[in-house]
């Protein structure tokens, strides 16, 4: 393997091409640093979450339980309670970060997120139908929510297909769909008993408590599939950022690439929201944070890593809670994300960027 630094490598564009025979992969230094940094932060937060909580284990007991030398009680707490919740949070956050980055790429709009485009509302409709009309289990809620988000994504694709290819159309159609679904959701909530309405509102807030390995595994599969598609698609998406006309000239299959990206983003959202509820703001904030860290809006994978970090950190705070009371994870992501975004906008205004 040889590593060659491009001759024009300077400043933000510094990159290295790793070559092995006829194969070559190009890595931007700052992106690599940002991804590794967020993964390291994620590992630290995850370890800290595992070691603290209602029963403080401490790092030593966590290590013992991980390596099979701990007590039965410690191993139960770690393997059956904390690790599945952590794994679910990481996978859910990564799915949301990735889907947010894909949507922002597709719409060329910094507000293009599943929350704005109606996918979250679609998932909510599905979950409400399951909770209220069928008085169902968590499993059925999960399936219905996933179906709701996915159906909304496909609907938006069908409605925007073949028209004006600019991102505005996608955003406006999405906002329209979101408004309709918000109305439907309001209607569904008024049609229900107070007990179901409470369960529904709790789901709507988004939470990770009580998640098990099955749910973690399901989201992890969605995430793995999403990462695989993004790896294949990222070069086409990159070219699409030069405009549809230039991308066509470069040999990108524009329509197919956009369709695959939209469907992938919808599946990622569906998987994440189905398991954790619509954790507010993660999909919107993660790509912006990733863009600031990498100095490039291209880094989809970094956005995924940041999403995982946000959800894991928010869940750690949620478990610590206020006083004795734990919080739903969605409350913390919403507050964290909102504060961060406002701080970001103020900081950028001070620097004269916006």
């Amino acid at each position, binding site marked *: 393997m040889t590593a*060659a630094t*491009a*001759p*024009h490598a*300077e*400043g*933000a*564009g510094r*990159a290295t*091409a790793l*070559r092995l025979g*006829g*194969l*070559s*992969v*190009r890595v931007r230094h700052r992106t690599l640093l940002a991804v590794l940094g967020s993964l390291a932060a994620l590992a630290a937060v995850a370890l800290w979450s595992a070691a603290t909580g209602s029963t403080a284990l401490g790092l030593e007991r966590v290590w013992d339980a991980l390596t099979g030398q701990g007590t039965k009680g410690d191993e139960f707490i770690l393997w059956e309670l904390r690790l599945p919740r952590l794994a679910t949070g990481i996978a859910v956050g990564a799915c949301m970060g990735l889907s947010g980055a894909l949507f922002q790429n597709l719409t060329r709009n910094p507000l293009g997120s599943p929350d704005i485009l109606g996918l979250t509302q679609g998932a909510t409709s599905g979950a409400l139908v399951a909770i209220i009309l069928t008085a169902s289990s968590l499993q059925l809620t999960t399936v219905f929510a996933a179906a709701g988000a996915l159906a909304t994504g496909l609907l938006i694709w069908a409605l925007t297909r073949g028209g004006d290819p600019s991102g505005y159309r996608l955003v406006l159609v999405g906002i329209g769909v979101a408004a309709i679904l918000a109305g439907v959701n309001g209607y569904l909530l008024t049609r229900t008993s107070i007990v179901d309405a409470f369960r529904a509102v709790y789901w709507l807030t988004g939470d990770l408590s009580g998640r098990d390995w099955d749910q973690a595994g399901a989201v992890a599969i969605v995430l793995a599939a999403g990462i695989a598609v993004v*790896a*294949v698609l990222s*070069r086409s998406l*990159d*070219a699409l*950022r*030069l*405009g549809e*006309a*230039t991308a*066509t*000239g*470069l*040999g*990108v*299959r524009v329509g197919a690439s956009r369709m695959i990206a939209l469907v992938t983003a919808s599946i990622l959202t569906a998987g994440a929201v189905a398991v954790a509820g619509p954790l507010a703001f993660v999909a919107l904030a993660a790509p912006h944070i990733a863009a600031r860290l990498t*100095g*490039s*809006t*291209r880094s989809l994978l970094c956005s995924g890593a940041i999403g995982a970090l946000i959800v894991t950190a928010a869940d750690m705070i949620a478990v610590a809670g206020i006083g004795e009371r734990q919080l739903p994870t969605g409350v913390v992501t919403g507050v964290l994300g909102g504060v961060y975004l406002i701080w970001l906008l103020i900081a950028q205004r001070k620097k004269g960027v916006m």
Partner: protein
Amino acid sequence: MTASPLAAQDATIGYGRVAISEGLNVDIPEGEFTVILGPNACGKSTLLKALARMLKPSAGRVLLDGKDIHSQPTRAVARRLGLLPQSPIAPDGITVADLVARGRYPHQGILRQWSPEDERVVAEVMAATDITELAARGVDELSGGQRQRVWIAMVLAQQTPLLLLDEPTTYLDITHQIEVLDLCAKLHREGRTLVAVLHDLNQAARYATHLIAMRDGAVVAEGAPADIVTAETVREVFDLPCRIIADPESGTPLVIPSARARDLV
């Protein structure tokens, strides 16, 4: 059949259900610098878009190397034909070298992202377009003329024998217009086949080796500038009474609009 590398054959092209041109037949001659001319909304950009496979004819065909362009893999087409659209978008903060490198897309794959050949070609086209010293600069910091040279370099990095340019001089001041056209002329001399849409008749007459004049979606005249640029054709295509004199610099036809033209017609 002609041996033209790029041709429209009985093509009906337009947007949605609105046809701009019907039954259009155009042959782009190999090795020439073809300029498509005509008044606003005559269908010249539409024709270029159809030739660049951005628009699919609702009837008829566009042929690249004798085969329907839409039946060929778009990446293979991108290695034969490069396109500079009218308003390409430079992502925020992208550097010149990064943007030019995007032109290598049709030669790359997931596992072949940046070969020594890519590196060599990018350096070569940056030298050819005289932007090597701008490599690390942000595209958004450049002047209009420099930016256009960067975009042309990106298209050149595709290494295609055919180049299509949609109004490459629009929005540029006269100095930069000439700079871009001189670059086009150099690319033509090096053996490429160029097709450009231009607004300025006199520039077209000076730089093109083949002209296609359009009006209302149809080709009115085509041929060498010396044969095509006559007072009659200009009146027919642009409704503009004029005199033609020889360009004192190049000897090519120079269109001088008649004084008080509009009042007299």
